[in-house]
């Protein structure tokens, strides 16, 4: 079961993204009001806003944390066509009385000519690497050659995806068997363009990112994309938020010979597809062990998905934004027995169909 706490965010416009830091004790929100806020969890479990500052001159679409090894670093991207890297300054300037901290801009990445829609730090083992994607369909990968100097970033790669990009996700696997990989989603509304999810892989020989896979079955606009934490798996799991929630499994096929320099071939399996949000799905997020997937859609609900031993994904809970449980959804531990499972399943289905009825009354 979840306990819902509402936080007075006090953003003056829509909040577009929420992001936890590496250790789960800090949180950053960004909003169309052009500001980013940082929240710290006190020992009593309360969230306090410790910083709020204007970051861009347009809507801030995403905010993301770097690995703490690089310091307390945030990256944000905005409608104003820039992405920015921010660092928290620890020292005398911090207003300890009011519990406020000071963030300063380390760099502004101005290469995009259109709105920058997503920004993500690469997994730590790749160094201090940042990827951005923009509405004109370009993914840019920046690297800070000196991790101590956050104000110097060089543009390493520019990948043209042809379609307007909305979201990116790095493959978090730290295995040497997996080359760096990045998945890009497109929110192009033209459904005749297939393959709204493209996966690019770094090729050691050519030192370039090359397209490894296109998920041709995804034709609707993709709003969010998330690789599951890898945790020693040999395969990759990718969650996609489009008009429904989809979970793909990418199994790298063994290469015949190690000399072949082409991109890794994957066996792509669609593991699950849920349209129970009955609307656009905006966000997907994995828990740390990648056993649980959360998705949120236009129905204002968060749904939790969990796989059983056979990779059968099921809804294990629905959370309303205001905290009221939709049904007796419970995320109970492993000891859930069969009867209860089927019961919960039924009630979930019931709730879903009720939701459908409601939405049918609405045009559009």
């Amino acid at each position: 079961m979840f306990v819902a706490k509402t936080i007075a965010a006090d953003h003056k416009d829509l909040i577009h993204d929420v992001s936890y830091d590496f250790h789960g004790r800090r949180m950053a929100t960004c909003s169309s009001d052009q500001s980013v806020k940082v929240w710290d969890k006190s020992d009593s479990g309360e969230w306090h806003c410790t910083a709020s500052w204007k970051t861009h001159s347009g809507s801030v679409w995403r905010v993301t944390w770097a690995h703490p090894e690089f310091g307390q670093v945030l990256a944000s991207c905005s409608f104003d066509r820039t992405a920015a890297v921010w660092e928290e300054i620890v020292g005398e300037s911090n207003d300890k009385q009011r519990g406020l901290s000071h963030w300063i801009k380390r760099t502004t990445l101005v290469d995009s000519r259109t709105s920058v829609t997503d920004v993500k730090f690469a997994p730590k083992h790749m160094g201090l690497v940042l990827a951005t994607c923009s509405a004109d369909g370009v993914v840019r990968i920046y690297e800070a050659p000196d991790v101590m100097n956050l104000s110097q970033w060089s543009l390493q790669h520019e990948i043209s995806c042809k379609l307007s990009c909305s979201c990116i996700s790095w493959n978090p696997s730290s295995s040497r068997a997996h080359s760096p990989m990045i998945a890009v989603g497109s929110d192009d509304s033209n459904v005749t363009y297939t393959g709204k999810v493209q996966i690019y892989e770094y090729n050691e020989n050519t030192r370039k990112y090359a397209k490894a896979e296109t998920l041709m079955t995804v034709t609707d606009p993709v709003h969010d994309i998330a690789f599951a934490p890898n945790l020693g798996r040999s395969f990759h799991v990718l969650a996609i938020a489009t008009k429904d929630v989809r979970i793909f499994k990418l199994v790298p096929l063994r290469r015949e010979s190690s000399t072949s320099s082409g991109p890794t071939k994957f066996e792509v399996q669609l593991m699950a597809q849920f349209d129970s949000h009955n609307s656009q799905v905006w966000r997907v997020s994995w828990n740390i062990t990648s056993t649980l997937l959360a998705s949120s859609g236009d129905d204002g609900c968060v749904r939790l998905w969990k796989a059983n031993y056979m990779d059968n994904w099921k809804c294990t809970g629905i959370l309303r934004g205001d905290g009221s449980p939709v049904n007796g959804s419970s995320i109970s531990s492993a000891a859930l027995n069969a009867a209860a499972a089927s019961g919960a399943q039924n009630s979930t289905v019931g709730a879903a169909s009720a939701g459908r009825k409601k939405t049918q009354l609405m045009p559009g």
Partner: protein
Amino acid sequence: MWHQADDSLLATAATNGAVVTWNLSRPCRNKQEHLFAEHKRTVNKVCFHPSEAHMLLSGSQDGFMKYFDLRKKESVSTFSGQSESVRDVQFSTKDFFTFAASFENGNVQLWDIRRPDRYERMFTAHTGPVFCCDWHPEDRGWLATGGRDKMVKVWDMTTNRAKEIYCVQTIASVARVKWRPERRWHLATCSMMVDHNIYVWDVRRPYIPFATFEEHKDVATGIVWRNQHDPDVLLSGSKDSTLYQHMFNDASRPEVRANPEGLSFGLFGDLAFAAKESLMAAEGGRKPCPGGDRRYPIFFFKKHDVMERFAQVSSVLSVFESDLDGGTRMDWFIETARRYQLSGRPFAELCDHNAKVAKELNRPQVSTTWTMLRIMYSDPGHPTPPANHNMSKLGNMPLMNSFSLKDMSAALNERNKENRQDNLHNLETNLNNDENEETEGSDGQAEYLFGEAELDDDDLYSIDHDNQAAEETEFSLPQEAFPLRHEIVEHATAPELPAEKAESPQASGGETESVCLTPMESFSLISVSQLLFQPRLLPGFFNAIVKDTLAYYAEQGDVQMAVSALIVLGERIRKEIDELTQEHWYMSYIDLLQRFELWNVSNEVIKLSTCSAITCLNQASTTLHINCSNCKRPMSNKGWICDRCHQCASVCAVCHHVVKGLFVWCQGCSHGGHLEHVMEWLKSSNHCPAGCGHLCEYA
């Protein structure tokens, strides 16, 4: 600029300071009507008086504004802004005599055309040049200004002091601003550089454009609403040498594409969720998309509805925290990591300890796996009395091995052969069936026979003789057992291995429904079986299964178990799993541990790992530079004697012996010593034990 009443009259301004009016209705080729060459520098703007047909106002780079009467040859009056350049002049829509002028220095001046000596009012609107201004067509006191500071500001001019009532932040300097006809809150802007788009803003929501026209390939130089009463048609000219007539319905709506929700899983299983308030308030229904309205632009009332909705937005931020008994919390992981013992004790004890930890944390399947590992890899320390008895029969085992059972299993069958000749046939067919149906069939056989072997002979006889009917069901068990086994796996996410082993005869015979075996039950049963066949097993017999088990745990997301078992098993299993996979597991687990700030555990794992790539992790990027505490010079890293002053550098200030273990020192005076000695000392005194008088602080 066109004359508002006369369609054929046109005024232009030029960079050479000329203001020209053209009359298109003139019959000859030269359409030029008037030429006023009074300005000395570029004329930035000309403006006809909205109601006075012959009056024209100009604003120039030279800082002057001139008021022309088209019936006369020269200007009627000249207004001096007493500052640099005039960027824009606009007659008020409310007041016949008033016009506004915007200046390059950021000021806006209000003038009365009857008083050319002095402006009526001046205020600073922007930092940097004010490129444009526009009076609101209905709310007569409102003036919108746009400047190089990328802002559009709306001023209320009705009060004594100009009051800023709205401020829109755009992404580039604002070149033109035009109120949208018939829409009280809307204005259109275009930019002077960088940005090629034309935006229509709702001033009440200054962050997201209400609509965007994205057609131009270069910056737009001018925009104008086509008709004073038509809110739907906008004309724009651009440096890309195109002129567009935009229909408002074709505009893209950034808000529709903007993400209304944010969602993130925290490390501890808590979930942060931010969503648009209306999404949560409405009973799960998406507001009809504006596309629905687009088809009926006539219904203003509906259109307004969209606007109202657009203007009033906010998000709710909430955090869902999993409570104590929730399975999503990560407490189990932390506890497990803390309490597992990975080295320093005999193998069997480690396994037992870890099994106990897992059991206490309510993870029976992991616990069982540990127990199994102990059994599979322990040397059978117990005497094995039945071995001889069995061995004799096991000798002819290969004969019985006609069907594809594992050797051991077959041997066990052999043992019961006398009693079970008939049943064996039954079994055999069952098993073969299974093999066809299930890829895991061979495992299934082993499992069944494990259970079989656990029974004492007496029990077997009793079953055979007393429960002949039940026997039938028991022997059809392997088939039934498959769904059953899956049930177990499903709820406990147990791996194949423990679940298989756990299939005891009791459970399979009568109590098939009660799938929850306690680990102890299966443990005892299996340990008996182990006695029976252990002596003749090769040491690596279980390696394949264990390898699969570890891989299974890893694929299920429990890399903790995979790594812990890998470490505890050590050499027993290491060669079975390829180096890359191991390294991957280690890396993932260490990353997890570091996330939870379990540095000690993480270090232990690094230390115990056998992969070279891992063990070097805590040997990298750690350098200690030591200075001699006597002569303050850098020390070579060998030995305790400073080679400059030839004294022992690391002498404990308390006991005066050389410290060879943990050395703690005060960073202020560099004196220190044995950890325990210094701790003892500090209980009695705050001063340095070396007597240097320093008030020592130990971090």
